[in-house]
């Protein structure tokens, strides 16, 4: 009996040790960015110093440098603008399409949903070269518009599929009774279904925004002008002067930019996963 209990205890301790190791593995690069961001250079670049400790008082100099001596602030604003534009385009294309797939096209709607989802699996690295020519032809190179036009190729397939799945989960009866009461189809959509679909639409908004903020390949291909870059390209490409890496400002801006995006994405990951695992499956 005692041995069974102590075995159980070993199992519990082992379990939390294991989880702890994985947490350190997952979060360490971010913790490291955070520590580096506030260290003075003389502390940072001394190989004798214990890198886990502050030997000199923490400093805000790197953050200040990032905002005043580099275009970091500009890149943050650009990322926000691109995200906003992509959200608008995605909503305009996704909401009608998802409604059509969920309610109007019957059996074909399900098949079309899967076909549209497959488009999400087409990676930027397959298309970035012809896409850069398309962008040049449209005279959008080195503008934020190039990204607002192209990013929905990533967000629309994913969000249409997600939202169609979400709408299918809402009861049809409410719209049908609204239509019996004299609402038109579109009236029932606007007045009855959309208010119920707000959680699904919020998911679409967050996904569109975070996927745009994360994107690197298209942004690196279309935009070479420093002032027009987004954070995900500006920080790795333009904070390095020649071969000199300014690790302090680099880590400060990488940390500052990635944590909010991560927190936003974290809010919707659950829905993304559950959509293609259990209840929602591929329907």
């Amino acid at each position: 009996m005692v041995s069974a209990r102590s075995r159980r205890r070993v199992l519990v301790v082992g379990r939390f040790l294991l989880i702890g190791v994985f947490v350190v593995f997952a979060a360490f690069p971010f913790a490291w960015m955070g520590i580096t961001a506030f260290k003075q250079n003389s502390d940072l670049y001394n190989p004798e110093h214990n890198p886990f400790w502050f030997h000199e008082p923490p400093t805000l100099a790197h953050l200040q440098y990032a905002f005043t001596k580099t275009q970091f602030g500009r890149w943050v604003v650009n990322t926000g603008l691109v995200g906003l534009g992509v959200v608008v385009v995605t909503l305009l294309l996704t909401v009608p399409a998802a409604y059509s797939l969920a309610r109007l096209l019957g059996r074909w709607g399900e098949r079309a949903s899967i076909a549209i989802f497959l488009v999400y699996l087409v990676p930027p690295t397959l298309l970035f070269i012809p896409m850069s020519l398309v962008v040049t032809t449209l005279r959008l190179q080195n503008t934020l518009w190039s990204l607002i036009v192209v990013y929905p190729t990533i967000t629309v397939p994913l969000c249409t599929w997600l939202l169609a799945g979400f709408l299918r989960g809402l009861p049809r009866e409410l719209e049908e009774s609204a239509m019996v009461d004299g609402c038109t189809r579109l009236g029932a959509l606007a007045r009855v279904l959309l208010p119920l679909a707000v959680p699904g639409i919020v998911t679409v908004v967050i996904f569109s925004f975070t996927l745009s903020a994360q994107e690197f390949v298209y942004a690196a291909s279309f935009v070479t002008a420093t002032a027009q870059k987004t954070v995900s390209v500006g920080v790795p490409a333009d904070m390095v002067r020649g071969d000199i890496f300014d690790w302090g400002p680099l880590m400060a801006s990488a940390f500052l930019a990635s944590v909010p995006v991560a927190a936003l994405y974290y809010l919707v990951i659950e829905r993304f996963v559950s959509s293609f695992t259990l209840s929602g499956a591929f329907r």
Partner: protein
Amino acid sequence: MAVAQSLVAALSRSRMWLERDRVLGPALLAPAVLYIVLLVGFPFLFAVYLSLTDATTGNPFGRFIGLSNFALTFRDPVALRALRNTFVFTVTAQLAVLVLANVLALALRRPFRARGAVMFFLLLPWVAPVSLSTIGWLWILHARFSVIDWVLRQLALLPAGANMFWLGRPDLAFGAVVAVHVWRMLPFATVVLLAGHSAIPQDFLDQAEVDGANLWQKYRHVMLPLLAPVAAVALLFGTIFTFTDMTVVYVLTRGGPFDTTQVLASLAFFKGIVGGNLSVGASISLLLFPVLLLAAVFVLRAARRTEVGW
């Protein structure tokens, strides 16, 4: 008056016509489909066209030269290395992810206090922008100030003042790229597996316990068969993401040292975008396509299976 009346009638008839599902359905779907055809379908065909020409940035439409670009690629040792790397990185990373994610999901399957916070930290590698988090790794693996080197020196595994040069040696750089891919895809696979765990009926596990099964037996004979379809989905997505990724290699090693960690996607970027050789770049990217097609077939099969329930 009569005109107005017939106009109203025509309008309401056309509204009724628009209201019909068979009209409204396609009409609402059309903008999204049109957008996808124009900005995914067309560029894809354009990529195929470019790969068969000698187009460069200076001459973006080029001249038709048949399959010469592909022939050139298959004679280029750097490209062959990139092709091999793409497969080796993907397979190695996904095998590691599959094992680690199964262990981690098993540890996390039962709720405990602070699980929400733990999940946030575990998910960070997947939810943060990869180009930024890879810079964190770049600093961790720095030639002179690597924190790993410092720890190794403290443990006397590395002589004083010595460095590993993680990204300067082909073998270590190779390992570093795989490690970052594992780090990035592990959260995703874990969360998918956790969702699979939550769908396992508790009765099954209780019954196995009554029958005297230990943890390994419960895992092997009850959980694993029920998790297999979900694990397949995680594997499929992980494979696609790792196989087509260029960001990790681009930020971490730029394909170096000496092109030993180059992958197809990064090589296409260096040749096509940086070097301006559009046709060669396009042909290298297109080498990703057969595997993607295969993956799509598997996704469709997984989707069909869901119709009868997993």
